[in-house]
């Protein structure tokens, strides 16, 4: 700003102090949380990348040497391409299912629940408080070989007489879908709730049938919720290992299981290489997805 000289010097000075003070307050407010994330999120990631390049022959006790072992990556991908693909496929199916069943629920809560709205919302969140693991064990019971679901499926001919549901991809995907459904419903709810109801009425007024009104107005305007919900569902499912561990067997291992097993076995460089690959793949997919959905504003 090329200010006029002497006479206005004082006022120009004062006018710039206020924004500068505000700027430093902004930093101050941000600082504690930012430091936390820097120390316990960014640094670990850097450490993870470093570990992924360590000499795979080292151990925790003996220490690791940085040998830039890119081989860790090629090896990891060679050995674990199958769980990788399976992890992404299962997570993808679970995400689509979550969207398909989560959208009507969110829609019903916003537009149809009336005075029950808050209660229904609470019911969506309530199972959270019963541990994730306890609920997954309950699914195990529901899908058990001698359980009600399997016998019904057998009667309907959906499952062979000696077939089972547990230890199948079906069970793992069902578990993932169930466990991450609230992560889909909540963002959808938020974006539908924010939507101006008059817009839908306006669409009706302009001769849109309810279905057209939904397709042309409601759905596009709830896109931020759809994007947020699919991300919050897909990302944790892609890295999950609990569902596959409890509801599947060794034929349903996902990449999360592989990473977990490797870490437990103490093969840190290999486990890190797998983790970094998973993270990188997810970030690339998310970036492409957000770009295509045109909701960069989401961040």
């Amino acid at each position, binding site marked *: *700003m090329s*200010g*006029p000289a002497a006479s*206005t010097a004082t*006022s*120009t000075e*004062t*006018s710039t102090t*206020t924004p500068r003070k505000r700027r430093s307050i902004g930093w101050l407010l941000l600082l504690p949380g930012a430091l936390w994330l820097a120390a316990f999120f960014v640094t670990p990631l850097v450490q993870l990348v470093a570990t992924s390049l360590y000499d795979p022959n080292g151990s925790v006790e003996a220490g690791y040497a940085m040998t830039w072992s890119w081989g860790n990556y090629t090896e990891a991908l060679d050995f674990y391409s199958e769980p990788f693909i399976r992890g992404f496929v299962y997570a993808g199916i679970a995400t689509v299912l979550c969207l398909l069943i989560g959208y009507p629920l969110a829609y019903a809560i916003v537009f149809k629940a009336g005075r029950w709205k808050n209660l229904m919302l609470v019911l969506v969140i309530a199972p959270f408080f019963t541990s994730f693991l306890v609920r997954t064990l309950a699914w195990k019971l529901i899908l058990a070989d001698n359980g009600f679901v399997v016998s019904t499926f057998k009667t309907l001919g959906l499952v062979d007489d000696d077939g089972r549901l547990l230890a199948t991809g079906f069970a793992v995907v069902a578990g993932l879908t169930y466990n991450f459904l609230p992560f889909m419903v909540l963002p959808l709810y938020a974006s539908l709730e924010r939507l101006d109801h008059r817009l839908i009425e306006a669409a009706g007024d302009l001769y849109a049938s309810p279905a057209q009104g939904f397709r042309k107005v409601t759905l596009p305007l709830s896109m931020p919720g759809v994007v947020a919900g699919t991300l919050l569902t897909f990302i944790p499912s892609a890295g999950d290992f609990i569902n596959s561990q409890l509801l599947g067997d060794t034929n349903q291992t996902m990449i999360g299981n592989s990473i977990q097993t490797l870490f437990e076995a103490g093969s840190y460089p290999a486990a890190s290489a797998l983790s970094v690959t998973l993270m990188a793949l997810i970030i690339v997919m998310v970036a492409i997805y957000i770009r295509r959905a045109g909701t960069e504003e989401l961040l």
Partner: protein
Amino acid sequence: MTLDTTDADGAADPGTDVAGAGDLELRSLTKRFGDYAAVNSLDLTVPAGAFFALLGPSGCGKTTTLRMVAGLEVPSDGEVLLGGVDITWAKPYKRPVNTVFQSYALFPHLTIHENVAFGLRRQGRSDVNGPVGDMLSLVELEDFAGRKPAQLSGGQQQRVALARALINEPKVLLLDEPLGALDLKLRRQMQLELKRIQLGVGVTFVHVTHDQEEAMTMADTIAVMNAGVIEQMGSPNELYENPRTTFVANFLGQSNLVDADISGRDGDDVVVDAQGAKVRIPADRVQVNDGKVWLGVRPEKVFLASTGEPHTGNSLGTARIVDVSFVGVSTQYLVRMGWGQELMAFEQNTGARPIMRSADEVEVRFNGAHAFVLDHAQDARAGVDED
């Protein structure tokens, strides 16, 4: 409810009757956003107790100006004085100025009663119930004291916003398009209401609007603002009858502007050559002394005479009617002059003479005391079609 200025605590104001003591004065006030000057070296004095309207098209800097007066925006340059005291750098809560916001900004979590009591409580007043009750009855909302803002209609919310500001007995009340969100009927009703309240309390009102009709019916003084500067200030009548810029001529009502030259002076009149026709305009209505000018005549000041009819006023020569539109109380004619320009003429349907038809030949006349002459350097279309 009357506002008793004597008990205003602390801020004693010696002699409200001394002329200019409570005036609001803006001195070369400037606000730049980056390189863009939203308000550009604006000078303005609002007399104490006035109903003052700031009129201008969207984006011309009206809100920015108000915000600087309220202390919500820091000026890039210039000063704000109230009753001679420099308040340019005072915090908003240190100024005896209150605002009715463009979007009302009522506190959604507080009842109407608490919204209105807010300012008094912040000033440490303990006896809020009496004044709040009085204020709510002034705006006829006694029965709504316990409700939340979301449970009121637009017009009612607007009145709460007004009550919430007025109860603090400010020296200046700033109103930023307070009627913008209301429908036409309610708007007219609230205009009268606001005027009544202002006369009752005697507080200086600075009313921002881009509705010229609203400004003209309500204000004693109007400042027309454009692109960050005041184009002209004066009474509604003065602005309309004797605009000093093409922007004001076009923005307030409509004007015919004809390319002309000053050809000389004759006593109190200036002689202007308008496309060959010599016309005489009183000198106080002429903004420039020589050279090229715009000769302005409002459409309702144009008289279309049958050719050859005797006359004493000015004549622009003959023209042909190209369009006639009948609008009930009046008829609007569009005529094409000999030099090709089309001019508007409005005529009251008094019935004294028959309505003319398209293609009729007429003589275009006007009274010099109703015309005005503007600097030719300005754009003749400035302010047209802006609202």
